[in-house]
């Protein structure tokens, strides 16, 4: 199995006034292709900071982060952007679609950004992904006109557009009612089982974590537990 993500002694500190505060104290972590892992921990534990580092949205203070075997610590901003676009898909709590575009166009967006111009292939790919999340009939709706659950499905389809090595989901069901949350989670699970896409899901909901294959617990900037889990 290929290694999708490797963190070695990853540290992150922020300067607040005169004082330097370390949020993450030397994180070592490895994710294999096809894993479906939960990252849990109390608020303030550094989950979001860690997720931003893994998502290449932020740079570590020290340590190395490898995505699909490429080291990233010495890459310039433009290369980081490219790597992020090609290898990482994001699903955020607040969906974050671009409301000026339709559902289909939102799903196409990562491909459009990458290739510069629309083409029939990316339209085809986006339509397939929308079908996979069960929203074919909403393809031409403007993103803002969809319900919360539908928006999150579109966001998931968008995260998959580039066939990323790793999908990072930050509280993907946080804003949804229990029933919708359940169906969204099942969708993520299904995608993982069908395509072997690797997921790292940040959640503080123990019920969701219990449905993942691996549970990583972060407390005060350190990994305090990392165990296999066998969902019922």
């Amino acid at each position: 199995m290929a290694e999708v993500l490797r963190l070695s002694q990853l540290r992150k500190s922020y300067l607040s006034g005169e004082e330097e505060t370390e949020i993450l104290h030397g994180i070592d972590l490895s994710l294999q292709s096809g894993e479906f892992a939960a990252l849990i921990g109390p608020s303030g534990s550094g989950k979001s900071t860690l997720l931003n580092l893994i998502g290449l949205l932020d740079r570590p203070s020290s340590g190395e982060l490898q995505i699909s075997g490429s080291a990233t610590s010495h890459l310039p901003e433009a290369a980081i952007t490219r790597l992020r676009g090609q290898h990482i898909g994001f699903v955020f709590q607040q969906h974050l679609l671009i409301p000026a575009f339709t559902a289909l166009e939102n799903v196409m967006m990562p491909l459009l950004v990458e290739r510069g111009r629309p083409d029939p292939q990316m339209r085809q790919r986006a339509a397939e992904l929308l079908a996979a999340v069960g929203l074919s009939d909403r393809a031409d709706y403007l993103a803002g006109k969809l319900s919360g659950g539908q928006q999150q499905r579109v966001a998931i389809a968008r995260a998959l557009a580039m066939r990323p090595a790793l999908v990072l989901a930050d509280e993907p069901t946080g804003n949804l009612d229990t029933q919708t949350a359940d169906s969204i989670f099942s969708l993520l699970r299904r995608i993982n089982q069908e395509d072997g896409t690797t997921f790292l899901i940040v959640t503080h909901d123990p019920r969701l974590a219990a449905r993942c294959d691996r549970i990583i617990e972060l407390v005060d900037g350190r990994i305090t537990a990392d165990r296999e889990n066998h969902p019922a």
Partner: protein
Amino acid sequence: MPALSSWLPFEWIAATRFLREGRAQTLLIIVAVGVGVAVIVFMSALLSGLQGNLVKRTLSSQAHVVLLPTEEIARPQQDDAGAVIQRQAQRLRSIDQWQALRARLESLPEISAVSPVASGPAFAVRNEANKAISLYGIVPEHYIQVIDLHEKIVAGELRVNAGEAVIGIELARELGAGLGDKLRVNASNGATDTLTIVGLFDLGNKIANGRNVYVGLRSAQNLLDLIGGVSNIDLALRDMYAAETLAQRLAGETGLVADSWIKTNSQFFTALNSQRMSSNLIRFFIALSVAFGIASVLVVSVVQRAKEIGILRAMGTRQGQILRIFLLQGGIVGLLGSLLGSALALLCLTLWRLLATNPDGTPLFPIELPPALVLITAAGASLVGVIAALLPARRAARLDPVVAIRG
């Protein structure tokens, strides 16, 4: 929502979608740009119409540059203190080697036409009437390239064969003469000639209409005792506003006196210049306020779209792409605003034509909206839009995706 056109790059698609989504905001700023552009275009058209008209009237009987022989100056034979040197009266003299000079002038790229003229004072006599006139001996095909006399002919034609003359309507009235009538011209040296009036002109200037008499070059040379010579060479330039510079250069090179229309009409020209300067100032400040308007709308838009920009960046959108999306929005607003502004200006011009008229219903002066002005304004407004967008676009491109998404 129309499907994404396959030929538009991502930045264009995003820029137009963002503008369309911002409906009221976009519409308001386009109208604001339009009003600014309309004022600029209308003012430019009005001013160029007015100035063109004024310049045309001023130049109707003047060449851009006139070359004259050097003045004769009396010099004392010895440095005798106390001797009063009286300025000498100027005789009518020919320009030395004018044929050679003319050939050289014709070869200069700045000069579009060269017209040798033999001119001097004379008297027109008919019955009891005796009028002081300025006699102009011309070669019509050259002369009309410098002064469009042929367009000022109101009766007969511009023809100055031997024994023929073209006179102004005022002189004709004072002498009681018309087409076909004879006119005797006496020069100060006693030479005399009888000419037939074959054409009447109206230069739009009462003095010129009462004084100028055009005859063939040879007739004038004979009358003015300038056999084979010319008293001045009139020049038309490709750029009439370069007249003074060229006049000074020619004066230096030829040793002749070179008078430009700018110097001859220096007060008029100063007035034109200050008018142009103040209008440039107004234009500049309008452009500036338009730029600030566009910039402020885009700054607000960047703040409003921070999350979208963040998510676009997370998806792998490069900073350059974000920058271009916002620069394009500035450019598009400028372009659309300038089109609206040109339409508004056209409306104003039409109203102006209808309202600002002479008593007889003809327009006060010709005023037009040249396509070039519209094109230049459109290009200028788009450029101003892009420049105005620079700061907001840079801000957008530099947004930290982490902060943008969380915020």
